[in-house]
């Protein structure tokens, strides 16, 4: 009896160790960036010298900065207007896209999920395929359409296509499918109109699914690279995702600091939305 208990406990311990190892692996980069932002250039050059200067040896890392300094943060917050300018662009784009998805994608997912719309299976398949196609495929054609609409070189060229992204429709759809039909039937019998049903039943019950789609889209917005590169030309319109400071000797700490600050909003949003994320993804995927 005791041996079985011990085996069980040993197994559990092993499990915890393995998981801890992986957890470290996944959290380490964040930690690295945070520490790096606090390091002065001298210290960084010492550690990362071989990497930057291409000399012999390897880059090393110390767990905590020996001489923490806020110089990088200061430089970033007070001396780099372009960084925040691009940040603002990213926020504008994100806001626009999320708003658009709420307005258009949400009803579309609802309509697709709950109503016998003709050809919905085909449309559903189309959504999936469109969602998976890499950007290069439609790049030129999308450019031509945007050009025809006169939207090029403005933030709208990024916002509008994003607002109609089929990915969110897919996520929200699967979740809406999971709502029991009985609820809606009951409401209909009580005389509620379809629109009312949508607002009173669909939205609240689907809240976590909607939020999860929005959170995922938010994260995606901070990583967008291909679209801004092609559709935007004016430098002042570029979003943060394109701000890749070169890792040079003088700018190392600054580069790390920038990366760290750049990923704070996604991580924060993610932190807030995590529970909805889980609920949304999982509940939506399980068939009742």
């Amino acid at each position, binding site marked *: 009896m005791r041996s079985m208990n011990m085996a069980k406990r040993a197994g559990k311990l092993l*499990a*915890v160790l*393995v*998981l801890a190892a*992986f957890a470290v692996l*996944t*959290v380490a*980069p964040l930690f690295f*960036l945070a520490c790096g932002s606090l390091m002065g250039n001298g210290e960084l050059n010492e550690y*990362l010298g071989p*990497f930057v200067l291409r000399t012999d*040896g*390897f*880059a090393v890392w110390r767990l905590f900065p020996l001489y923490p300094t806020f110089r990088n943060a200061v430089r970033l917050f007070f001396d780099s207007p372009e960084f925040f300018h691009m940040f603002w662009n990213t926020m504008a784009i994100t806001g626009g896209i999320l708003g*658009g998805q709420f*307005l*258009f*994608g949400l*009803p579309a*997912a609802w*309509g697709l999920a709950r*109503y*016998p719309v003709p050809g919905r299976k085909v449309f559903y*398949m*189309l*959504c999936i*395929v*469109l*969602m*998976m*196609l*890499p950007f*290069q495929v*439609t790049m*030129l*054609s*999308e450019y031509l*359409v945007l050009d025809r609409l006169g939207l090029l070189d403005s933030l709208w060229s990024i916002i509008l296509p994003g*607002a*109609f992204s*089929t990915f969110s429709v897919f996520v929200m759809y699967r979740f809406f499918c999971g709502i029991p039909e009985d609820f809606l039937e009951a409401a209909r019998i009580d005389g509620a109109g*379809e629109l009312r049903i949508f607002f009173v039943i669909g939205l609240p019950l689907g809240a976590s699914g909607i939020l999860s789609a929005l959170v995922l889209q938010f*994260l995606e917005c901070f*990583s967008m*690279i*291909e679209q801004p590169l092609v559709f935007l030309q004016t430098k002042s319109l570029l979003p943060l*995702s394109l701000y*890749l400071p070169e890792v040079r000797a003088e700018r190392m700490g600054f580069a790390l600091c920038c*990366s760290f600050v*750049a*990923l704070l909003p*996604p*991580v924060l949003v993610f932190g807030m939305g*995590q529970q909805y994320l*889980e609920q949304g*993804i*999982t509940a939506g*995927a*399980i*068939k009742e």
Partner: protein
Amino acid sequence: MSPSRKRRVKKTAVRRAGFHRNGRRKAAGLLFLLPGFAGIAVFYLIPFGDVVRRSFVQASGGRFCGADNYRTVFGNTAFQLAAKNTARFVLVCLPLLLLFSLLLALLVNGLGNKLKTVCKSAFLLPMAIPAASVVLLWRLMFDLHGFVNGLLALAGIAPVDWMNTGAAFAVLVFSYIWKNLGYTIVLWLAGLASVPESVYEAAQIDGAGRAACFFKITLPLMKPMIFTIVVLSLLNSFKVFREAYLVSGNYPQEDIYLLQHLFNNWFLDLSVDKMAAGSVLLALVIGGFVWILQRSWEEEG
């Protein structure tokens, strides 16, 4: 009135109302769908339609040339290499990710609630890191003079030129798994949690062992979840191009030369006809794959 007559009247009334209801519901559904559909049509369907059209005409001049572009694309060695690499990548990392995440999910499942949440948060973190930061990290880790080689040196192993040899493929797979692990684990966990305890209890009474339980009960019941996981993982596997491009440029090491690199380069060359044909082929393959998955795993639409 006698009860039977009342019922009869109610039935016909219900049937007629039901008929109307269906039509009204269809209309309502369409209304909900319309604005979103319009946008999707303008920004996705029309461009894709244009791509299909371009795959049948010449790059400039627009002369119709039938299946010429497709023939050229099939015979193009760069395309063959890119397709092979992309397929290899998907076939390697998708199962790898699924297995890995399943194993870890099983481990996490056995933990207490608090630890569970901590683990989930930690694993989900990489998903939130934007591509630009990932590239910075990647560079620092996998460069010839980077961290990983430093660690290897400590262990006495010779440094590997990660980005310039076949090892680049491993780096790509690693990056993909690192990023998507948490996401997938969470999905598995939910799937595992969705199977009611009662089913397990019944099986145990029948004498089924844990492994049999798992394979014969858990997995089949999670089929819809697996469908979602596979679709989303496939989607994310295409996103790996971003990091590869930012680190290695247009002509990376041979083993990580993907279809998107090729399309990108074709575009730089103005070979839009080849690009269109290749894209249509890719879309067909993806469509076919998803259709098969749907047929075999989805119970209903």
